[in-house]
């Protein structure tokens, strides 16, 4: 059962809505929790045990972190004793935090990364003619483990830093970790963003329900019409990459980037829409990323919740460690304010991008993807003042349309190259494909029918193009700060309903499902 199936859209979701509405307010969260666990069970079966261990341990450790400080009795104690008691408490809390993080990240590392680790150790040993030391390890992954683990980690860290109080309500914490719309692809929510709304038990409201279904419909449009259709071509090009080169590989990289965007942002639309139905505001994860002008801006608009998570829980903690602070001080002293500052940020930035790469998967190409953006963003930070000076010197207006087009094209090329390696089956495959762009470039493929042998027909290309135009138009309107849904809700019923019926029909008719299409899994659900 996925978010695009008939079972989910017409039976599961309406069923949960009905039971939710019928239940008394204080019990409504139980309906959502039962629905979420049922959804999890339907996808991962007995692997729910990992989720339950995560939930119970996070709950217990959060309370332990909190009680440890509350139990600290400083009445009638001398200043020196106070200091030593506080220090002991801090040490204890840090140990409890590490224990909590160890349990959460330990499960993720063992289940997701042990195979990668054992394979590479064995490869190294093989290279020096040693027999395999570690057995081949492969574990079944529970759905959404990469997402709910990050949510669990952020909860523990926030309790530790006293940004939020520890929650004694196990049901609320369980629902925060596994609310069914966010289970498969996130976004990565913070406890302070969703937990209270999840247990508030607000009744369903007409406006929320209609807005929610509109957003779900938009998500289905992107996923079914664009992403799943492009999947045919992407599978062909990346699956048999040795047969293709030049323009076909470029096309594969471009269309994969759009497929990924349509798939992931489409799923997030469905997630946010489902949240809206129940009156729960789920954070946005995309903000027209292709309108960015630089790699760092792109990542502030693409998978926003992962970016902010990495900033808060990797970048800042690394920046604040004593060796990094010392390194920063020395860098600034030796290299000057600007260069020193950029160099000082490098260790934390490196940590962020290594984690970003590894979070996505266990291939070397994911690691390369992380390092690729680390280098690009570091260079961007380093050269920015010089670029501004050069533009001023050459009297180039940086707000000029042509300059902005140049920036956009440059950014798109950077993104397409990154996604080529990201989607490639291995690092070697990525390098081979990238090389073939230059060694096997032949414009004949544009006219000899090759493009129609990649899994898409004229009709498919047309449907993708029209879908792409719709996404672009909506993006431009959103970029101007206009809410399309508010506009539509202002129309009279005949116009409004004609639009809704038209959109529903469009998704049903042009959706790439059924005969002739491979059922495409949600891409980020695999990370």
């Amino acid at each position, binding site marked *: 059962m996925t978010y695009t199936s008939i*079972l989910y859209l*017409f039976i599961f979701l309406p069923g949960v809505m009905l039971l939710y509405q019928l239940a008394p307010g204080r019990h409504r969260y139980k309906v959502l929790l039962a629905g979420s666990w049922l959804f999890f069970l339907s996808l991962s*079966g007995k692997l729910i045990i990992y989720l339950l261990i995560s939930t119970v341990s996070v709950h217990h450790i959060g309370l332990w972190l909190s009680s440890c400080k509350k139990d600290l009795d400083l009445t009638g104690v001398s200043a020196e004793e106070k200091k030593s008691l506080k220090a002991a408490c801090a040490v204890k809390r840090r140990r409890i935090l590490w224990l909590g993080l160890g349990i959460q990240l330990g499960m993720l590392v063992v289940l997701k990364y042990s195979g990668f680790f054992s394979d590479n150790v064995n490869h190294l040993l093989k290279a020096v003619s040693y027999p395999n030391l570690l057995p081949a390890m492969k574990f079944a992954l529970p759905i959404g483990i990469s997402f709910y683990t990050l949510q669990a980690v952020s909860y523990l860290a926030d309790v530790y830093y006293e940004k939020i109080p520890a929650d004694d309500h196990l049901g609320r914490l369980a629902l925060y970790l596994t609310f069914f719309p966010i289970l498969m692809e996130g976004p990565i929510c913070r406890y302070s963003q969703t937990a209270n709304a999840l247990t508030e038990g607000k009744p369903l409201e007409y406006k929320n329900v209609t807005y929610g279904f509109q957003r779900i419909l938009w998500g289905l449009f992107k996923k079914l019409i664009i992403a799943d259709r492009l999947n045919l071509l992407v599978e062909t090009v990346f699956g*048999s990459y040795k*047969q293709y080169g030049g323009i076909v590989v470029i096309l594969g990289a471009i269309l994969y980037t759009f497929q990924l965007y349509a798939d992931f942002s489409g799923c997030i639309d469905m997630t946010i829409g489902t949240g809206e139905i129940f009156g729960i505001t789920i954070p946005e994860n995309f903000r027209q990323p292709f309108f960015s002008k630089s790699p760092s801006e792109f990542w502030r608009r693409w998978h926003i919740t992962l970016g902010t998570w990495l900033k808060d829980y990797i970048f800042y903690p690394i920046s604040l460690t004593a060796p990094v602070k010392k390194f920063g001080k020395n860098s600034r002293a030796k290299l000057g304010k600007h260069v020193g500052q950029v160099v000082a940020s490098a260790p934390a930035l490196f940590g962020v991008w290594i984690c970003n790469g590894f979070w996505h998967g266990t291939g070397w190409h994911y690691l390369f993807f992380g390092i690729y953006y680390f280098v690009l963003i570091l260079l961007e930070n380093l050269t920015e003042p010089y670029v501004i000076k050069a533009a001023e010197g050459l009297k180039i207006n940086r707000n000029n349309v042509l300059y902005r087009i140049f920036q956009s094209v440059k950014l798109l090329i950077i993104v397409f190259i990154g996604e080529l390696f990201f989607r490639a089956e291995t690092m070697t495959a990525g390098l081979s494909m990238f090389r073939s762009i230059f060694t096997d470039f032949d414009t004949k493929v544009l006219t000899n029918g090759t493009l129609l042998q990649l899994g898409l027909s004229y009709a498919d290309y047309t449907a993708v193009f029209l879908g792409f135009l719709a996404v672009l138009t909506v993006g431009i309107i959103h970029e101007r700060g206009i809410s399309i849904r508010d506009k539509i809700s202002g129309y009279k019923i005949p116009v409004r309903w004609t639009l809704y019926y038209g959109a529903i029909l469009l998704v*049903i*008719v042009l*959706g790439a499902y059924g005969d002739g299409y491979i059922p495409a899994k949600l891409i980020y659900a695999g990370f």
Partner: protein
Amino acid sequence: MHAGNKIRTLTFITGLTLLLYIMSFLFLPANTGAEGLYKKAGGIYKEPKNTIGYLSIGDSESTTSISPMEIWNTYGYTGFNCGVPAQRLQDTYYLLEKVLNRQSPKVVLLETNACFRDFKYINALETIVDDKTKKIFPIYQYHNNWRYFHFYMLKNLSADVTEKPSPVYKGYQYNINSKPYIGGPYTEETDEVEVIQDQPYLYLTKISELCKEKGIRLVLYSSPSPKCWTYAKHNAVKQFADKNDLDYIDLNLSLDQLSIDWNTDTRDGGDHINYYGAKKVSAYMGSYLSGLNLLTDHRQDPRFESWNNEFKTYETQTIKGSK
């Protein structure tokens, strides 16, 4: 929710239901010139009663591997390819049960890939819901016919070859797309045995029992497929075949005998074979069926004249397509 909003919601849903119901007619194969696409397994019910000598059943590995017209041409055996892409064994069982109400084949060829299809109850439930939806709102099944509208409306205009639905001959959909398999040899022997999950195992047994009950010779076969096949799967099927006293033909172990060329005989890089591969597999299976001495040659039988006519069309198509 406000009473007015409740009425509005109900009206909207009723309007949508009616719209989908009405729009469904526009997309029916008969109204779009795309009937050929849907003549696959369903076509078996249009065959005259008790005229089919053998059936091939299973998932897409079955659909793509046996062309009954090839076997008709060489041996005169009447067969029908009832393979359905992505079909699970329980659905294969119910399909067979239904077909056997009209036909009395002597042999059933069951392709074994579906034995290893991951079974989850939720997927089975999804299939049921999808099937019901398709029945109530055919637009859900036939929506892809939008691409054929212009052929129906402007049928005198020539259209691009990729837009035309491939014709279907006795359940076999002709397909000459070619995408080489480049992975090298894949049949290294092992003692490992793949597990056939409980549910597929149950229905494999049920299919075997149904055939026994009806006096049908059940033959298990594995179509050449480097992407789907493993030696461990072979071992699992072999165990089942030995236990139930069934013949098992693993074509992956007879690639040289079949002369399979992975550069030309697969349509999708080694997952399924194309027409060229199916021609070789059909020749092999035809020879096997001939060796069983259970089937009758009907080529000279006037009651089966339509088979000769269909073969002529098939021949014209394949000769044209192979140029």
